[in-house]
């Protein structure tokens, strides 16, 4: 049986999720025996840029017409399109631009020239094309990537937890930064899968994986409010990596 064909692409982002693929040092060579990596610009100069792909992994968000065209082209040539990382899944840090005047921002950063750039407001992939599978994380977790590949090779989508970081934090018996130190920890709202990485280091979760399936944002806002934190501040915090929390200020 022919090996499944794979493409790895980056739109505008930090390339962190592509880097996580390259960070699978122990699995990388095995992986290349199982799948045929046809197109991976960041890692190879010998790419087939027009072949049909079984799976396309795409990181980054759509921030320019060029990104949009590229994404649509990828969609056309691939059977399964996988959004890789928080930028691709939710919009990522660049989507902090929601409700802001982008032209002004462009001018602020690039001066007069800013206005002329090929620049669009940040969008997640699903806002532009149909996405078959989302692997969130900023960056994605290596084990979730491997399990996605292993499952997809069997023909199944991977199984990811839908509960929040809080659950993993408790499972690992970390101290609760929210209750014990009164910090703004996004753990109760953020989707798990990172093994509560930050709380495990005594650092509050900043929500880098985006919202959990069933996040009760309104109640959490009230809870922080009771701790004396202004709503705008919580909202800003929550929106850092994903605009999709449905936060009402």
């Amino acid at each position: 049986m022919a090996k499944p064909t794979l493409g790895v692409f980056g739109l505008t982002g930090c390339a962190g999720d592509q880097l996580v693929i390259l960070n699978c040092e122990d699995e990388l060579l095995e992986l290349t025996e199982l799948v045929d990596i046809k197109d991976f610009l960041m890692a190879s100069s010998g790419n087939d840029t027009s072949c049909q792909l079984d799976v396309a992994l795409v990181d980054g968000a759509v921030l320019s017409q060029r990104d949009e065209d590229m994404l649509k082209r990828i969609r056309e040539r691939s059977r399964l399109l996988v959004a890789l990382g928080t930028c691709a899944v939710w919009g990522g840090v660049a989507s902090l631009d929601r409700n802001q005047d982008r032209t002004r921002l462009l001018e602020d950063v690039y001066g007069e020239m800013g206005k002329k750039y090929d620049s669009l407001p940040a969008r997640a992939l699903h806002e532009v094309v149909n996405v078959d599978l989302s692997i969130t994380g900023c960056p994605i977790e290596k084990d979730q990537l491997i399990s996605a590949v292993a499952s997809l090779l069997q023909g199944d989508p991977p199984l990811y937890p839908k509960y929040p970081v809080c659950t993993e934090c408790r499972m690992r018996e970390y101290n609760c930064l929210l209750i014990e130190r009164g910090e703004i920890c996004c753990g109760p709202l953020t989707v798990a899968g990172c093994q509560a990485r930050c709380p495990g280091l005594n650092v509050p979760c900043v929500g880098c994986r985006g919202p959990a399936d069933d996040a009760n944002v309104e109640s959490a806002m009230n809870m922080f409010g009771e701790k004396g934190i202004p709503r705008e501040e919580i909202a800003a915090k929550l929106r850092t990596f994903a605009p999709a929390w449905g936060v009402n200020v």
Partner: protein
Amino acid sequence: MLQLSETQAAPVFMTANPYQPHMARIVRIYRMVEDNYVFTLRFLDDQLASAFSYRPGQFMMLSVPGAGEAPISISSSPSRPGILELCVRRVGRVTNALYRLPNNSVVGLRGPYGNGFPVETMTGNDLLIVAGGLGMAPLRSLMWYALDNRDDFRNVTLMYGVKSPAQMLFREELASLVGRDDMQCLLTVDSDPTGTWKHHIALLPKLFDYATITPATTYAAVCGPPVVYKFVLQRLLELGFSKDRILMSLERRMKCGVGKCNHCSVGYKLTCLHGPIFTYWDAINLPEMI
């Protein structure tokens, strides 16, 4: 009041590890209806295969290697030993993986689990089986059990309804029962786009008009989607059925099948241990049951 047997002896061949799947071979795949195949299975271990016994209404935990495990009712009847049939609808991870397997593949099985129908108590009574859609899967076991032990039961009636002829499970098999004089087999479809359907075209509760039922001596076994319960139960109560003569088979999310994982709890009962067969009386006493 009817007591459902909740604590039977563990199956003879059960190992000390109740989560241990036993490997079984898919000996036949019958592509009955799109996304609804019947799999005939046989345990690899001969001893196990011959010792295996169960009650109508019980279910198995089916493992597909690499995909996971799911509860599936046994569709065959214990009155025909040596054959184990599962009628599986393709809905998710495990069932998808099962559908990808070719004949002769090996899967894992453990069970049988659940209380099953209280056939001893039902003996000597009339039997009314009412199935809607996929509800036929567990009820087929009971039906064949009754037909194979025909002398144990008085009148046997089957009422089965689906949306259209193409969705009818075990269609040929059931159609062949229609003329039988030792039972009444009533089949219906909501509509028949093909124009070839020879049986009833009506909603399932309508079939009650064609049968004579004596509630006091009848046990009714019902299984189907929620809407079936809604109308059929209403009909049965109107007929004067006692609430503990109505038996229903429930479906819940289930992860262990042996009363540990707590996913299948309804109110204070567990579908896997105390069910999946419950009486209607249970149902009104257990919140969230239907």
